[in-house]
């Protein structure tokens, strides 16, 4: 999570809300035709991709995918598959299991260190790292791999219109607010107002951290119905949703929220 937070902070510091959307040549003067031509190729604003899964055929004819990160480095590679189609399944497994810390394991084979990623459910190895000279290096690389998978899952949610956080400033109150929307666009959680954008962004991060923990949810009954409230470890409210007609309805939503947030399939607003 450290790398992810570092990346997050960096993104915030730069306030770069768009990815690398290359501009081509500026509009030339004089003719409409030239202007239209120059506008071709301008990229729509897009979130920054943190890495990629590269699928390759090996010299022995088998297939493998590699998780590529910064510097074009191979962060993790899969087991070998006979068919390319199997690789896609492997990538999906990485996206499901690779966001869970507990599925990673550092191992030592005759003084050579590396790490494995095991599939949720059957704990079969679905990916492994390169070799490292020390446990410390392998452990650090493992944390970075996990952060990269998380970032890629969030990126995928962003470019496939998946669940997302929206962040904006209310023009009347001047407060910063955020909501968590599901894939269907419906609001699943709504924040309190924050005086600063940084605080609101920290709130989003707090939803990601606390929203997967059952004990961080409480229900509150009001005249209009039952609210589901997400709180931080210090009991401060982060966000809420409702009202619901019944407590059991709120509990169902809580389960959905926990599943969604744990999957990391929620895009950032930047």
């Amino acid at each position, binding site marked *: 999570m450290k790398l992810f937070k570092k990346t997050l902070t960096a993104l915030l510091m730069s306030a770069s809300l768009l990815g690398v959307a290359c501009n081509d040549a500026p509009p030339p003067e004089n003719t409409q035709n030239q202007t239209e031509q120059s506008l071709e190729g301008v990229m729509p604003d897009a979130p920054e991709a943190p890495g990629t899964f590269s699928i*390759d055929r090996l*010299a022995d004819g088998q297939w493998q995918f590699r998780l590529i990160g910064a510097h074009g480095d191979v962060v993790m590679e899969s087991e070998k598959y006979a068919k390319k189609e199997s690789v896609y399944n492997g990538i999906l497994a990485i996206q499901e299991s690779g966001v869970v810390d507990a599925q990673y394991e550092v191992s030592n084979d005759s003084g050579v260190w590396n790490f494995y990623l095991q599939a949720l459910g059957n704990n079969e190895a679905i990916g492994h790292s390169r070799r490292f000279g020390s446990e410390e290096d392998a452990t650090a690389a493992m944390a970075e791999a996990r952060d990269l998978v998380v970032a890629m899952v969030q990126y995928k949610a962003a470019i496939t219109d998946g669940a997302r956080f929206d962040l904006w400033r209310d023009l009347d109150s001047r407060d910063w607010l955020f909501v968590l929307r599901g894939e269907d666009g419906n609001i699943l959680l709504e924040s309190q107002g924050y005086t600063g954008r940084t605080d609101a962004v920290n709130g989003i991060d707090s939803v990601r951290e606390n929203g997967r923990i059952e004990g961080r949810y409480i229900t509150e009954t009001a005249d209009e119905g039952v609210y589901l409230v997400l709180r931080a470890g210090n009991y401060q409210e982060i966000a809420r949703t409702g009202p619901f007609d019944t407590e059991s309805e709120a509990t169902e939503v809580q389960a959905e929220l926990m599943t969604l947030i744990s999957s990391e399939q929620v895009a950032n607003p930047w």
Partner: protein
Amino acid sequence: MSPEKPETTSLKDKTMNKKAICLVSLGALAMAAGCEQEAYDGELGQAQDEIVRVAHTPVERQSIGNCWLYSQATWVESMNLTYLEAHPAGGEPENVCVHNVCEEGDKMAADCNSCATKICDADPYCCETGWDHLCTGAVANLCGVDACEATPEPTPTEPVEPLDVSQSYWTYWHWFDQITDNFYGDEIQTGGWQWKSNAIVRDRGVMPELAFVPEDSQAESSSRQSDALRKINEALKEGGELATAAARRDGETVRRVFDEAWGLSDEVRAHLDAAFGTDGETTLRTGGSVEGTPILDPSTIPVRYTVRRNGETEIKDTNLVEAIREWSVERYPGYGSASQRRAFQQRVQRALHDGNPVVVTWDVDFNAMNDGEFNMDNLANAGGPGRQGGHMTVFADYKAITNSFGTLEAGDTLDEQDPDYADKVDELLSSSTEVVYFRTKNSWGTRDGEPLGYHQLYMDYLDGPIKFCPSEDNKENCTGESNPWRDSMLPPGY
């Protein structure tokens, strides 16, 4: 290190071309107007007018949104050119392999020869920890069966030509990977980032423009890229050859459609087949080979840059793979304090003074541009934001105001024989100096700029903030502010 000689015209031939090589060191004002036709005079990169000296190849013009590949090409070409200037007859890197690659032993330096580079690229353990049986076992596969008996790579006796990298070649593979790996949507995405361009270089190598799309080497802009993009996007639509998931997963089908869309010659198609298979699914890191093709293995492309260690600058001659590993992207502290921003600028200045091509990622607002200059006055005069987007280019020079020496103009020579030279450099790099603008080599052709093709990015603009209004249709729909200077890629230790 002897780079594989590409099939390319000689430099003298190129003087006949529109894109003839002309070394535009920063502020090469004297060369600006004549750049396109400047004849090669045997003194590549020896331009005299500069406050810092970064070797640059001619300006090109992107025709689609792939500036990140143009900046990557500029970065590679510049480091290669700097190397060639220092080694006009080629030559090996200074690092010596401590033992044969086929013998187990101590870890090796990745840049001691091209085989060690390949092995360590595949398994960094070999260069970080020790050269064990897995390292020696990989030699035959990655370096060829004769690698154990190989004598040191010959030093070429003929001058080696500077690279003219084909951005089209990288673009081809960027799109290929998109479609065959994990494709979302029904249109090619042309944007990218350093991590992606680095992966493409390591997986697919480098191809000279003349060898991939020969017309690219004759023109400032590649119309082939925009044509190919349109054709491939057509193929992705319903009823097209790449409309189905099955077709997109089939590398041979994608290659066939691509080769047609790009108008590749039979010879080029054969080269791609030989290197990466007819389905394009094998890469240089998974068993592909450039042997017998004009494709250049990045581990054999010599480059020069500098590194900072313990406060000292060291020249490093190595290969492109090592450069990719070592350079890092650093965020500009746009929202930080003035001293934090100045400290970052000093790092960039120092890297430029040492001749390094610093890559910059920045936000463009075309209303801030006038007469080749991006500044806040222009933006204010325009009355509001204009067309916006992200951009990547490579710095070339800067203009600064110093306490003791006044304003030092970009394009003005800092004469090493000048008794004040050292003091000037010291002061330029001090915290009291104010950078007025950074000059960047751009990829928008040579229609404007000073010199043509180079733009002045004023610090007031780079610091911002500017309104962020991504919608083309509604410039009132601004969603926040941005500091245009996002980040820079710097050599190690800066």
